[in-house]
């Protein structure tokens, strides 16, 4: 049972690293030019996913309210960042 939990945690860590590498590659790809909105949305989506993995697998919280609150904190700022990225497109 314990060994299985170790494998789950290691698997979660590998997923997390993979998602971080994908997000970094997207950002570095457009380093010297403006990032398309779709790419920004993809990176922010990956941010929420990464946050979810950290909260669910790394933190392993027993209280669902805390899990929801932390996930919402990450989601809220990802949405605020997306709104900020969309603002120049929408208001010009």
């Amino acid at each position, binding site marked *: 049972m314990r060994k299985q939990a170790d494998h789950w945690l290691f698997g979660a860590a590998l997923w997390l690293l993979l998602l971080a590498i994908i997000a970094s590659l997207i950002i570095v790809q457009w*380093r010297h030019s403006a990032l398309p909105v779709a790419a920004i949305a993809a990176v922010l989506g990956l*941010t929420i996913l990464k946050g979810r993995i*950290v*909260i669910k697998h790394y*933190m392993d919280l*027993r209280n669902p309210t805390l899990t929801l609150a932390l996930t919402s*904190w990450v989601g809220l*700022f990802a949405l605020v960042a997306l709104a900020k990225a969309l603002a120049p497109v929408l208001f010009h």
Partner: protein
Amino acid sequence: MAAIDDMTSADDADGGLLLWLLVWSELAVFSILICGFLFLSLQQPEAFEMGRRHLGTGLASFNTLILLTSGWLMAEAARADEDRKRRRWLVLAALFGFVFVAVKLLEYASEIPFSQEPGLQGFFEMYFLVTGFHLAHVAFLPVLMLLSAVRPKAETAGALATFWHVVDLVWLVLFPVLYLV
């Protein structure tokens, strides 16, 4: 009342009410800093766009991997069933934390020359404030990890792991906000 009792007992299982008060107060401060950064980037879009191009995105990406690996090591420390194993995971997690600090300082060294350029002071002041506050947390917690590795107790490792994962979460949010949008 029963709901509060439920919440408190669940909080205790997750590290105690005091720990979570500290965590949420830290998140509140980071929220204000992130909002401040985003607000200023709306006020001075050209300066922030120019400033962002001088940031060490590659090093920051590498640091994300370092911090997430350290988070995994801390999760292992919190779950370890023997003191010997817990000590090993704590020391490894702390080492990765120090690597993050070293890489961030290297990144700062490449960014500082641009911070005095006309028009970019506002961007870099906010950038150094936000990342510096985060860096202070990353530099301080590994010291506590090493201290707790001397006598590795499960409760201490659990509390440190929770706080470390919150520092991870803050970085996950800061990374796209600072380097992307």
